[in-house]
């Protein structure tokens, strides 16, 4: 008997938001089940394909092996049916990346799954839960096609055996979320709601390139954001990654280079012993940039390897 599941919650996702036509999850959110089904129909929804088709893929893993990549053929609802191996196996379906090329955040989401045999959803959490706040790099840009395999967040899950949530989309900046005390409070509360055991902030390159604010203003807000997180998660370590290299790091409209924003993060961390600074310049080689800004598969590999080195002792 076939079973259809419309998830109201997903692993590695903030609570799903009802957007009317679909439910929005965090990017790379996971549906997991152990099943003997030999067929699954993956129902999906995306509102990003017309602008960035490569970022609308979803992926299916079988027993930890990346098996299928589903590329929607149009915006809106769609489905694709996949044959699965015989016998019991763990199936994971991973949602797509997200971006904000205009006024709203767009993405590619899991809508409904139909299995040819019972497939109870598994929402068992890992002991270690890493919350990564970031931009298009955290959202997997540069690692597509196959971002669910090659981007650093899904890679990290496999490397450290932890839940890793990517709260990220393309063009995101700290200015979008933490421009004032009220916004920072809301941001911290939302982050704490997921109950992370570790927080990684990987933000700032768009604050520089879009010149939302000066490096000094950015640094002050960054420090206040750290304090807001600390207030609701007093025992959770916070790791702060500064922007990775860019092909061009010339001064922006405020006269500040990317380096000035890196220094602002370092300064904010230096004043807070419980926050660890990590220099993005040493994490990704400039040779591993796909387009001058986003890391390629090898660059994403460098990030996941680096994060593994700092997170694994706690995992």
């Amino acid at each position, binding site marked *: *008997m*076939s079973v259809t599941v419309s998830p*109201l919650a997903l692993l590695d996702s903030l*609570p799903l938001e009802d957007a009317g036509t679909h439910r929005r999850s965090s990017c790379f959110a996971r549906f997991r089940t152990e099943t003997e089904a030999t*067929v699954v*129909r993956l129902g999906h929804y995306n509102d990003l394909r017309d602008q960035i088709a490569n970022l609308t893929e979803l992926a299916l893993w079988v027993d930890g092996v990346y098996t299928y990549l589903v590329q929607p053929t149009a915006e809106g609802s769609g489905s694709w*049916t996949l044959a699965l191996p015989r016998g019991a196996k763990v199936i994971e379906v991973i949602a797509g990346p997200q971006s904000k090329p205009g006024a709203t955040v767009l993405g590619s989401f899991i809508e409904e799954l139909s299995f040819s045999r019972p497939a109870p*959803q598994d*929402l068992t959490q890992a002991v270690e839960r890493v919350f990564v706040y970031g931009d298009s790099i955290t959202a997997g840009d540069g690692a597509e096609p196959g971002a669910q395999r090659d981007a650093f967040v899904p890679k990290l899950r496999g490397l450290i055996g932890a839940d890793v949530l990517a709260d990220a989309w393309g063009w995101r900046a700290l200015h979008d979320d933490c421009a004032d005390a009220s916004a920072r409070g809301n941001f911290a509360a939302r982050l704490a709601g997921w109950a992370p055991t570790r927080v990684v902030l990987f933000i700032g390159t768009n604050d520089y390139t879009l010149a939302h604010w000066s490096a000094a203003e950015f640094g002050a807000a960054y420090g206040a954001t750290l304090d807001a997180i600390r207030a609701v998660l007093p025992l959770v370590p916070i790791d702060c990654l500064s922007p990775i290299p860019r092909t061009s790091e010339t001064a922006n409209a405020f006269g500040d280079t990317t380096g000035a924003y890196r220094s602002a993060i370092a300064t904010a961390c230096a004043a807070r012993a419980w926050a660890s600074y990590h220099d993005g310049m040493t994490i990704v080689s400039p040779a591993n940039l796909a387009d001058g800004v986003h890391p390629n598969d090898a660059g994403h590999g460098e990030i996941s390897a680096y994060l593994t080195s700092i997170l694994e002792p706690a995992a």
Partner: protein
Amino acid sequence: MFGVGFSTTEVAQRRQSGPAEIDPLSLFSGAEKGGFWSCHQMSALFQDAARTTQITAPDQNIEGIADLSGNANHLRYVTAGPLYKTDGAPGALMTTNLGWSLDPAGALDIGATTGLSLFLTLRQDQIDTTEIPFSTGQPFSGGGGFEVVTNNTVDGRIGASLGHGSSAYLIVNANATILPGASYVLGVVFDTTQSGTDKIRLYLGGIDTGVTTVAANGTVTGNVAAAGTLKIGSRYTNNTPFDGRLHAAMVINQALDAETVAGVSDHLATLAGL
């Protein structure tokens, strides 16, 4: 704790579709036309086309298969038949161009009907060239036949066609992908009373895959299943063979609804140990 806003009883909206398993034989209880051939019942498998010596062990050549539907549409293989296999997905190992034909040779009598349903339990061994596990040839009411295609575009997709040649035809691909080694129950429902691509519905494991039109010409109408040369395991022209395991095949002169397709698919999957 788990995220905000959902209790453990609210993590998903679930629904089960389709009745319990449906034995295909029950669909023939009203003397419906068609056929049901399955490797799950060794007593229906024979080492000779005359169907006198039963299959008794793996790796014997299957040269005759008795029709379990009661319609006496028995099958034969004109030369050394496919090997009977029981490892992994049980069934007949198909590798040659010949395929199964009716015994005595001729057209499958399925009557005058605007609807027809077809099931195949298969294991796809590789993804290389176009393969056709089920086919009927001309002549056909309205001038065509129907076929099922695996590897339709050599990318693991499956498809089906209704009608062909200079007549009206419709060719669709399932919105689905098969990986080499996958075992599955494929269901196809042809219904010329429907419009557009709804004339052909493709199911995997009882799940409606949705389809994409590959090619179409005019509008296929009228009887879907008049006399045509039946071939199972290859095309009616003795080429493009299915390359893998064939566990069961069934055809019936009805356009079954989705729930029945799911029930039959479940039963066929159980018979094949899927």
